[in-house]
């Protein structure tokens, strides 16, 4: 399997590390909603087909990537930097230097 990193170009699978399901939504840090946390930790779609995933180009530029991969064929239809594809941080949080 070859993943085309937006910076490095096409690279072998051995350079990448799987970082998990890209569909998870982390509840707010202060949330005590057990259902939401349980879903975040355990619930997975496990689709037979297109799947949103997070990969890290660990053996290259070390950036995290948002990859859409077909679990049946391993065909990769979309790759983007996870930072660009993911939920935007609010300007206020960014100014305070907080992650989120």
């Amino acid at each position, binding site marked *: 399997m070859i993943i085309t990193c937006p910076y490095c170009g096409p690279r072998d699978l051995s*350079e990448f590390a799987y970082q998990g399901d890209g569909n998870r939504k982390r509840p707010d840090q202060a949330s005590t909603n057990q259902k939401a946390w349980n879903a975040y930790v355990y619930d997975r779609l496990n689709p037979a087909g297109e799947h949103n995933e997070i990969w890290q180009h*660990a*053996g*290259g*530029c070390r*950036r995290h990537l948002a990859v859409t991969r077909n679990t049946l064929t391993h065909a990769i239809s979309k790759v983007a930097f996870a930072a660009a594809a993911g939920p935007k941080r609010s300007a206020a949080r960014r100014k305070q230097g907080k992650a989120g």
Partner: protein
Amino acid sequence: MVDQLSPLEPVLRTGRHGHLADGVGVRLAETQPGSIVQLAAWPGEEKALIRTIKQVTGLALPDGAGGGACGNGKAAFGFAPGRFMVIGEDENIAGVFAGKLSQKTGTVTDLSHGRTGIRVSGARAEWVLAKLFAIDFALPAFPVGSGLSTVHHDIFAQIQRSGADQFDVYVFRSFARAFWHTLRLASEEVGYEVR
């Protein structure tokens, strides 16, 4: 001035080795530059950092993935978004960048003692490196001056093409001897000369 100690010193056997029937296929050497520096730009400050690299080294880096340049005993290339390696004979490149680089632009990390530079040159250099890394080393795909970041099993490597048949490979100092061993084995079939 402190003497440079090479991690390859105990295993560096100069001379010609391997299958030499067709001559020397590759030459291997440790480059031992005075400085190896990593620069990182804050988001959106990449162009300002490229300008600072030009100010300090005189090297004009093309804007784009892996863009780099070398000459006059200096070399620079991008290996990740907003991240650059600068290598040179001068022992205080990190100090010069620390003075020139605004805190709003990015950061300087002196890796002079943390990386080992190995030069692989000669007619079979592409062939030997292609056996170690899953990278297209052909000239059109990997032009002179450009660089990239890759890995050989657990050994991270930054590679710059510093000539049509010459590559500079930067590996972690602690992995340098292991990588040198692998490189010698890979070079054996084409015949190699250690300088």
